[in-house]
Structure formats: structure tokens, C-alpha cells
């Protein structure tokens, strides 16, 4: 893990899909399990409306029923089908996180490359803003912004984007600085290419692996934070099904029916565990070091 990877120029084909590194990564059971969990979760989130036997907010039976053939996971406190709510419980959080993080990764990459490559005063200014944004614990920052903007998906996406841009800037800047000293960047500069061309054509392509990792890691972290906020009553609100919210509702019956709490907890944890193990295996195989992920 300590070896510093030599950056490889971009290969335009999708040959990496069949590469030895990928096969080696997937031969590790933990990485493969992570990938399977992630794919299963994505499919479930996409297909939940088709798979759900009942409407997620319809009152379909007596409250707090035990699992039966009619209600696979029983019913919740007010008599909604728990199975339908469990399989749909990650959709909003995932969608909001994914779109918000996509914006954060794009803007963070732009700022990070500029800070790292141009350097000097520009770098100084960008990095002090980064330090300040990252000094406020992200849960508190999200809570403040939610207070101002509301909790609809239309508000949560920009909130996630604003909060998570700065971590991306830091990672991309560090990688850009280390790339800037390498020969292929130097030779592009000596060829007389403009700074913009160097940033877009020489540096950006070499960040793609790192960007993939950033996207995955930060989506999982944003899902965690949004669930935590829903759990605290500040995020996604009723009647939308959400795992964080469901854990919170289940705390009321924790002494009698603990599985109401365990089911959404397992769903949320398995998603995050899947992402982290997948990313861990893949980034090791593709030579992205722990330090780079800062």
C-alpha cells in the first residue's frame, strides 16, 4: 500500500474492464461481495416500485403484525406494509446523494485542478475556504442549510453538493500537485501548450480512477449523513419511506419488536459496507493509496 503508483496515461478503450488488475481485485471475496451488494442495492432502488406488493404509504392492515405471506415483513406502527417500505427506503437518499455528489465531484475537480496546478495566491484562497468549510462538522452544516432551504429533494441536492465539494477539492489538489511534477506534464508545458490545455488534456485524464473512488466513497458518506438527519427528524420526512426515519420510528417499539429497527438498519449498513469494501478492493488493485484519499 505504501508504493507510489506511477501514473499511467489514459487508455481510451475500455480494456480495463478485462484487465488483470480488475480480475485480481474481484478474486478477493470481500471485494466481490461488496460489488454484489452495491449492484443488488442499485437494482432494488431502481425496481422497488415494481417489486413492492403495496403502496408505501397506504394503510393496508392492522398495525405491528408479524411477518406472514400477506405481509412479508409484517406491518409498521400504523399498518403500512413493511416490506414495501424497506425495499423503497434507500431510493430518495441514494438519488439525492448521487446527484448532489455528482455536482460536488465536478465542481470540486475544477477547483482542485486549478488550485493544484496554478498554485500561488489562487491556491491559497481556495484552500482557506476549503479549510473553513471543512471545519464545520458536516452534519451541523447540512442541518443549517436544510433549515434555510428545506428538505425536499430539490433542496437536498444542492445542500449535498455544497457540503461535499470541499473534500473533493482537497483530494484532487493533492493529486494534481504530484502529477504536475511528472515528465508528461513538463513536456506538454515545454511544447508550449496553454495552462488550460495542460489541465484538461494532461492532468484530468489521469484523475479518472481517483474520481471514481471519490464518487463512490462520498455517495456512501452522504447517504449516511442524510439517513442520520432523517433519523434525527431533520431530513426526509413522512410519509416517504427512508431507512433513517424507519430506525427512528422503530425506537418506540425497541423493547417489544426489535426487528423493526434491525431491518432498516441492516439495509442501510449493507449498502455502506458494500460500497466501502468494493472501493477498498478496487482502489488497492488500481494503486490508489490511502493517503491520496485523505
Amino acid at each position, binding site marked *: 500500500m*505504501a508504493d507510489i503508483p506511477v501514473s499511467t496515461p489514459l487508455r481510451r478503450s475500455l480494456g480495463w474492464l478485462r484487465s488483470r488488475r480488475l480480475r485480481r481485485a474481484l478474486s478477493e471475496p470481500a471485494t466481490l461481495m461488496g460489488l454484489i451488494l452495491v449492484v443488488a442495492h442499485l437494482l432494488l432502488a431502481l425496481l422497488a416500485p415494481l417489486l413492492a406488493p403495496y403502496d408505501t404509504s397506504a394503510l393496508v392492515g392492522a398495525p405491528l403484525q408479524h411477518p406472514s405471506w400477506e405481509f412479508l415483513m409484517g406491518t409498521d406502527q400504523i399498518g403500512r406494509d413493511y416490506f414495501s417500505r424497506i425495499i423503497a427506503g434507500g431510493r430518495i437518499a441514494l438519488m439525492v446523494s448521487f446527484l448532489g455528489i455528482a455536482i460536488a465531484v465536478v465542481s470540486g475537480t475544477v477547483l482542485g485542478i486549478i488550485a493544484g496546478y496554478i498554485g500561488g495566491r489562487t491556491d491559497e484562497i481556495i484552500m482557506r475556504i476549503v479549510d473553513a468549510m471543512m471545519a464545520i462538522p458536516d452534519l*451541523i452544516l447540512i442541518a*443549517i442549510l436544510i433549515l434555510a432551504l428545506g428538505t425536499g429533494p430539490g433542496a437536498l441536492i444542492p445542500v449535498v453538493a455544497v457540503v461535499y465539494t470541499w473534500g473533493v477539492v482537497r483530494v484532487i489538489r493533492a493529486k494534481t500537485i504530484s502529477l504536475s511534477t511528472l515528465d508528461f506534464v513538463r513536456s506538454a508545458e515545454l511544447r508550449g501548450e496553454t495552462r488550460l490545455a495542460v489541465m484538461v488534456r494532461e492532468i484530468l485524464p489521469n484523475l479518472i480512477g481517483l474520481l471514481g473512488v471519490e464518487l463512490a466513497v462520498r455517495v456512501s458518506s452522504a447517504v449516511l449523513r442524510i439517513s442520520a438527519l432523517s433519523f434525527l427528524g431533520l431530513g426526509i420526512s413522512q410519509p416517504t419511506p427512508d431507512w433513517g426515519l424507519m430506525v427512528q420510528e422503530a425506537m418506540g417499539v425497541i423493547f417489544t419488536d426489535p426487528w423493526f429497527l*434491525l431491518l432498516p438498519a441492516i439495509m442501510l449498513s449493507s449498502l455502506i459496507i458494500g460500497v466501502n469494501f468494493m472501493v477498498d478492493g478496487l482502489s488497492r488493485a488500481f494503486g490508489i493509496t490511502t493517503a491520496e484519499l485523505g
Partner: protein
Amino acid sequence: MPQILAMTVRRLVMSFFILSITALIVFLGTEVLPGDALTATIPTEELQFYSADQLAEMRSELGLDRPIPVRFLEVWARLMTFDFGTTIVKHEPVGPRIFHPMINSAILAGVALVVMLALVISLGTLASLKPGGRLDTTISATTLFTYSMPDFVVSNLFVIVFAVWLGLAPAVILAPTNAPKLTILAASILPVLALCVHGVAYQYRLLRAGMVEALNSDYVERARLAGLPTWRISLVHALPSALIPMLNGTASFVAGLLSGSVVVEAVFKYPGAGGELLRALSQREIPTIQAIAFLAALAVVVANLLADLAILALDPRVRTRSQNG
């Protein structure tokens, strides 16, 4: 030596500057984004009962009709001097109100920090003895697993296992905010553990990477050839420089710890600043929110400053470099 002093002063000035930007962010988030402090404080359904004149009058009473830069400077000056003002509706002073919760949270985070550092250093040193060995793989996988467990899930699992099934600990802490600190400390075993489960992995990975690198370096090879015992090489020679990557991650780590403690406090009803923040958020008590957010950021900035100084002490290379972004 004067160089170190100059760097320390530079870091101090920088920290002050960062805190000022933080104050600006908190101000923008709480007072400028849609709706000012007044409309944020009054619930929407009550807002219709106020006439435009009444609202304007209340605004000028609160000084909200002045231009934004003036208001920011005022908020900035207040936060920087730890004068947190009074709440908008009840005119209660914020400072005394959040004092005890703040101390309680500091105790929780402080104890969790010490426990975590002890865990991280022992696990990281153990794992690095044989990189890729069975112990290393097990610890790495375990910490990655616990890192992936949401903090509110871990806290609830602890409640189910220790309070509901085993009956060993109370599910929630019933101590008032101003209870003797030892009482609160005694009740905080589960919250501290819950924070550690999630928090250990981040620092552990950085330390392990640092240890592996240090153990592969020339100076450790030299110590090995000189016949020093393994434990001495690990603890005395490799550990100090291996701490550096971990110290570099201090800001993210402490910020994460504070985010986590808001959640953990809520599950265990710990009488800390997290609960106070949630109450302030639900009642839209802007001055309290500003105060807690600012103090949390202050904790992160100070921790980061201390870590930077520790790096200066540990790493001679940083001292000779003129600039270090």
C-alpha cells in the same frame, strides 16, 4: 528556533482567518439564505397573523433592517468574543444556557478521542508488524466493517444488546445537564464505545499506511541492522514519523467525531450540545445554532492547529521547508 516561532505565528493567523470565514458561512446559512432570522424564528403558520408593519418594527428592533455586511460584522465580533447574545423570542442569554451541555459534549468527545487514539496506535502498530499477514488483514477488514456501520445504527444496537437483552446499562441517560461531571462520565460508557466503533477506522488506516511506509524506510533498516529489538524499532523509531499522515487528517477526523456525537447523544439522550443543537434547530433559535456551530468549528480548528504544531515537532523536514500549504 525562530523559524518554528514564525511558522507557529503563521498558523495562528491562518486559524483566525479560517474561523472568520467559518463565521461568515454560519451567518450566511442562518441569516441570509431565504428568510432572515425573524421569519425563520416565527413558524410559517403564525407568520400570517403579523402585519407588514409589525414585522418591519420587529426587524428594526432586532437590527435586521441594516445592510448585510454590517450585520455580519456584528455577528463576527460577537462570535469572536464568545458573546453569544440572547434568543430572539424569549430574550434568554445563550452563553450560560449552552455552557453545561458544551462541557458535557467536550467530556464525551475527549474521552472518545483518548480511547480511540489508544486503540488506533495499538492496532496500527500490531498490524504493521507483518503487513499482509493474518492479523493485519483481520484488523483492516474489521475496522472497514465497523466504519461502514452508521453511528445511529451502532448506538441502537448497543441499546438493544446491552440495555434490552443484557440489562447491563440504562438505555438512556437521565442525568440533567448540570449534573456532577463524574456522574455523566460514568453514564457515558456506551456513547463513547459507539463513537469509537465508527471513528476508529479512519485514523487507523492513515496510521497503518504511515507505519508500513516508515518500516520500509532506510533509517529503520539501519536500526534493524544495528540489532535493535523489533518492539523498539516499531515504537521508538517508526511510530513518530508514522503519526504524521494521521495528524494531517486531524481536521476531518475531529469534524467527523463531532458530527457523530450529535447523533450518538440523541440516541442515548446524553445531556450535551448535540441535543441542545437539535432543540435549537427545531425551534429555529438562530443565536443558539450560530453559537454551537461556531464552537464546533473552533474545536476543529484548534485541534488542527495542535496537530500542525505536533507535526512541526515530529518532522524535521517540515521545519526546513519554507512554505507548507
